[in-house]
């Protein structure tokens, strides 16, 4: 909502400075978004008289002017055709900045004649495109007066944000009322007394709404004016409308716009000669059309309220008038409309038609139901004053709906809810200044007051609203800052185990040289499908683009695309992860937290110390296990199976599980996925499902008791030849299980196929550590364990000791 300071002062008698006013506005809830004073850019320019203008001796098109600035006489060379002796113009002295040209004036000589300043045009002043000649002031003003003041431009424009509950402040009067309540001046009286009409209106209002939808337009009023002259509106009105960004059109149209902003009372004017018969408030015929004042044709449906005459719809109720019956410069007879419309229906209709208008904006936020007839009277004064003519009697249809109601306030509630004491009589005073009629005479006088809500405050619903009203005018600054008392002396844990695991996973992966991304929860349908998602139920109905229209099945979908984007920028070797949501369905439980990551290109950049190497599935397996370790999963007990989902390479991927519970999956990305995302391989990925990791049993877990052995461990190496399709894990398990008391560690240190190992077989070399507990091992004991290991591996895998 924009307005100018002088316009505000039409309603508010005040000595307050601009700064005091804007400070007060923000602190009573009318947030100032900007203040723009056009006079500031024009401060150097003053009113001056051209005392003498003579032809430049050396240039046909130039004149040499002697300018009287009020304090001085200066010579200026001027090229304007209208520069002549005696005229009143605008002088820019040497050193001033010309907004229209961006030049700072210097003293100079033009073709041999001294020039000390400039007589300026409107374009040079940045006021308009007018550049035919220099500005010629029509009204007398003392020489030396600031031009902005003489031209009425010294009027700051204030822009404030109006919250949706304050429809009353979409007019200057509401803003002035709030300021007056806050002690910034007093509200001036508004002259809206009825003016008698001279004849009966030839046009009458009809309402033809269904019985159960009378509320869509409960009341409408109007007046007929004959013999008007619709020229341009006066300068003061045009200036104000322009200052707030509106384009002046004609006196009649400008009056409706002016009253809309002045009093938050939307109006419409019909050219009465173009209206066929009476006008009726009714629901539109489905499929009927209207050419609206914005030049667009809108197709209406049966939910929309229209103003219709015998020819068809002439206006969309509460939103916009029609072009056909609109006023023009030729209009001589006018019919004025002031109506009440249902806020919800106006909002729905406006949304359906995509029309944003000042009227819609105000009706949606509710206008003062009791101000329809005063609005007609204010408009009547303006029409008669600016356009002449004669007014009819006022015509109406329907009734103003009842708006009288009152809300109680326990005076102690301000303190108990807001922590600040405000005296009961001060509470009453504030509410009265805001227009409430306060009754403190009730039984529990002093403890409770009853406030009759003014018609312009439909937002006041209950006691909390009154608390807010009192407090915002009293000032939020009066509320003390109070420490929130602690419920316990030391804080309790803020995070659950599950929440801590998110941070643990993040830290573990960053330590593994991976970079954390935070990516959108939605992806394209194509990306979703590549990663097993894209169910219809997870499609957005109104995506902002087709690339972002499905809830993602895994963060991996976003990370894989991000990897491709980074590669396109020249960063193909990368390691990215995200700990974030995946979406299975649209229920509250259909969301899970996944730690996902992708590595592409070289795992390590090549260096003088070691060659680079491409990423492989075991990098991803290591990442997954690191997350699981960080989240205290029983990593040693996990099984590895080969049934990873389809976005992984079927032969180079695996699943880490506890029985049926899949905790993680990892592997190379499927070549098909890489091709679809235009991502060059190799690329490996993992997903760890944090919510599926078992939670520790309640109570702090103590580690098992450590028994340190006094005896040296013994290491023995074995190499087994087994069929190449036997998982290595079987060999490791068999070796570990050969003597659980004695075998403390088994490490696989070599996998070999090639010369010396027959085709279809592979050689696995393991190092087994034996840790005796009670006595040093004898050679016989070591040999016995070694035999058991060989037997166990043989029976588990069919492998034989390599010769």
């Amino acid at each position, binding site marked *: 909502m924009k307005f100018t300071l002088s316009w505000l002062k039409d309603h508010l008698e005040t000595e307050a400075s601009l700064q005091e006013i804007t400070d007060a506005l*923000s*602190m009573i*809830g009318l*947030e100032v978004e900007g203040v723009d004073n056009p006079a500031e850019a024009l401060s150097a320019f003053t009113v001056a008289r051209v005392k003498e203008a003579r032809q430049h001796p050396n240039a046909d098109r130039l004149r040499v002017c002697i300018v009287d600035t009020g304090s001085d006489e200066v010579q200026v060379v001027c090229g304007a055709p209208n520069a002549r002796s005696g005229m009143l113009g605008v002088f820019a002295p040497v050193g001033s900045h010309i907004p229209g040209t961006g030049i700072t004036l210097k003293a100079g000589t033009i073709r041999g004649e001294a020039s000390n300043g400039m007589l300026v045009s409107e374009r040079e002043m940045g006021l308009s495109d007018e550049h035919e000649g220099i500005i010629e002031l029509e009204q007398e003003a003392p020489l030396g007066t600031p031009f902005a003041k003489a031209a009425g431009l010294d009027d700051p424009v204030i822009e404030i944000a109006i*919250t*949706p509950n304050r429809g009353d402040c979409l007019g200057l009067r509401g803003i002035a009322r709030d300021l007056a309540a806050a002690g910034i001046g007093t509200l001036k009286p508004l002259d809206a007394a009825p003016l008698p009409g001279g004849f009966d209106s030839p046009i009458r209002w009809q309402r033809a709404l269904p019985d159960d939808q009378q509320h869509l337009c409960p009341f409408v009023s109007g007046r007929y004016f004959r013999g008007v002259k619709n020229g341009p509106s006066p300068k003061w009105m045009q200036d104000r409308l322009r200052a707030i960004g509106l384009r002046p059109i004609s006196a009649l149209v400008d009056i409706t716009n002016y009253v809309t902003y002045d009093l938050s009372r939307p109006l419409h004017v019909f050219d009465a000669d173009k209206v066929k018969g009476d006008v009726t408030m009714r629901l539109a015929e489905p499929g009927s059309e209207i050419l609206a004042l914005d030049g667009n044709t809108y197709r209406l449906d049966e939910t929309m309220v229209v103003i219709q005459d015998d020819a068809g719809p002439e206006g969309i109720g509460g939103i916009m008038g029609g072009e056909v019956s609109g006023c023009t410069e030729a209009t001589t007879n006018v019919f004025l409309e002031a109506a009440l419309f249902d*806020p*919800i229906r106006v*909002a729905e209709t406006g949304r359906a038609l995509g029309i944003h208008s000042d009227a819609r904006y105000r009706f949606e936020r509710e206008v003062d139901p009791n101000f329809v007839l005063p609005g007609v009277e204010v408009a009547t004064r303006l029409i008669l004053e600016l356009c002449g003519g004669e007014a009819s009697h006022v015509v109406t249809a329907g009734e103003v709906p009842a708006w009288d109601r009152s809300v109680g306030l326990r005076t102690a509630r301000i303190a*108990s*809810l807001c*922590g*600040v004491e405000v005296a009961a009589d001060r509470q009453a005073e504030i509410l009265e200044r805001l227009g409430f009629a306060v009754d403190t005479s009730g039984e529990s006088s002093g403890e409770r007051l009853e406030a009759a809500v003014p018609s312009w405050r439909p937002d006041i619903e*209950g006691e*909390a609203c009154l608390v*807010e009203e009192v*407090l915002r005018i009293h000032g*939020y*600054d009066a*509320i*003390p*800052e*109070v420490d*929130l008392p*602690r*419920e316990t002396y030391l*804080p*309790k*844990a*803020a*995070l*659950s185990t599950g*929440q801590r695991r998110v*941070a643990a996973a993040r*830290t573990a992966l*960053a*330590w593994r040289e991976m*970079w*954390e*991304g*935070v990516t*959108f*929860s*939605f992806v394209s349908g194509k990306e979703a499908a590549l990663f097993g998602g894209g169910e*219809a*139920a997870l*499609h*957005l*109905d*109104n995506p*902002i683009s087709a690339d972002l229209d499905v809830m993602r099945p895994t963060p991996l979908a976003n990370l894989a695309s991000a990897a491709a*984007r980074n590669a396109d920028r020249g960063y193909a070797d*990368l390691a*990215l992860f995200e700990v974030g949501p995946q979406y299975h369905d649209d*229920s*509250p439980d259909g*969301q899970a937290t996944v730690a996902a990551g992708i590595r592409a290109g070289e795992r*390590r950049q090549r*260096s003088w*110390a070691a060659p680079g190497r491409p990423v492989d599935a075991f990098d991803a397996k290591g990442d997954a296990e690191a997350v699981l370790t960080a989240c205290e999963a029983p990593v040693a007990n996990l099984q590895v199976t080969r049934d990873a989902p389809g976005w992984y390479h079927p032969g180079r991927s695996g699943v880490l599980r506890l029985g049926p519970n899949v905790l993680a999956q990892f592997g190379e990305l499927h070549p098909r996925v890489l091709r679809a995302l235009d991502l060059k391989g190799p690329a490996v990925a993992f997903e760890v499902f944090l919510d599926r990791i078992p939670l520790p049993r309640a109570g702090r877990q103590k580690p098992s008791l450590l028994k340190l052995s006094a005896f040296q461990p013994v290491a023995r190496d074995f190499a087994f030849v087994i069929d190449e399709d036997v998982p290595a894990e079987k060999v490791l398990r068999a070796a570990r299980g050969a003597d659980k008391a004695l075998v403390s560690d088994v490490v696989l240190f070599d996998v070999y196929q090639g010369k010396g190992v027959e085709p279809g077989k592979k050689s696995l070399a393991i190092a087994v550590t034996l840790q005796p507990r009670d006595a040093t091992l004898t050679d016989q004991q070591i040999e016995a364990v070694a035999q058991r290991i060989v037997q166990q591996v043989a029976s588990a895998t069919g492998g034989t000791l390599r010769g």
Partner: protein
Amino acid sequence: MDSLEQLQSSLIDQVAAAADLEALEKLRVQALGKKGALTQRLKTLGSLSPDERREAGQSLNKIKEAVNAAIETRRGTLEEAALEARLAAESIDVSLPARPAELGRIHPISQTWEELVAIFGEMGFSVAEGPHIEDDFHNFTALNIHEWHPARQDMDTFYLKPAADGTRKVLRTHTSPVQIRTMLAEKPPIRIIVPGRTFRADHDATHSPMFHQVEGLVIDKKTHMGHLKGTLTAFCRAYFGVDDLPLRFRPSYFPFTEPSAEVDIGCSREGGELKIGPGKDWLEILGSGMVHPQVLANCGLDPEVYQGFAFGMGIERIAMLKYGFPDLRIFFETDLRWLKHYGFVPLEPPSLVRGG
């Protein structure tokens, strides 16, 4: 006895002249070995009278000790020289870079999230979360935002495709539905923060279709607006690390709070640089208020018994203000260059007591 003196000086001269450890060992054997000159001399003592033997033995032993000492001295010198030579030969170019290893980085959103937890955690708040795909009731209706409400139209809500019954789920437009879920599930006292993803159908230089908010909710029988001011003042000062940071509470409107307040923090823009702290300007950073009685009632809490406050702010916004990240949209681009430049080292979680 001349010959003994000669022998001693000759042996000592030879030891001093030994070129390397090998030559020295050879000398030691020649002098002190089983067949060495001194050893041979000592063997001849048996043929002497006891007195002569004592005298000669003492002399010989003195020589032996002297030669031994000379050998050890020489050995030390030679060993030192050998070590010097080896060290000289073993020198490397220490300007070579270490084997490549990098510490990854934590995303600024996560860092800020943890900072929020650290500060509010100290004030006794715990972290609550909720689903991103919400229903109308939790995201709107229970929060007093009715279908026709202008605030609802302003929110640019994302909807999922309609279900069979025609209803549409929404992507939560704010973290406030978790207020509702918490109040429905738990009895007061409630003291939570809700950091999380939120969604609005808006994409331009200053809006992202996904962003993060943190919600705060305190419900009990006595928490009032003064506590709201105290809590947010303490938070902002701790978060921005400015002890005298001024805050300004302005009346505002949210459907789910009454009275409502927007909160500005002090700043200055002198020299074109934004500085958070006491200054001439204000920056709006969050919305807050006392929980609306209708919202309490919607959650089965009697507004005559329970009261409290709620607040919400944008995590990206406060991160940008604190750390000076210039652009919102790139937060979610996963651009490695940005992550490397603006990411945080994963050394320890932020903590007030550690000064993080």
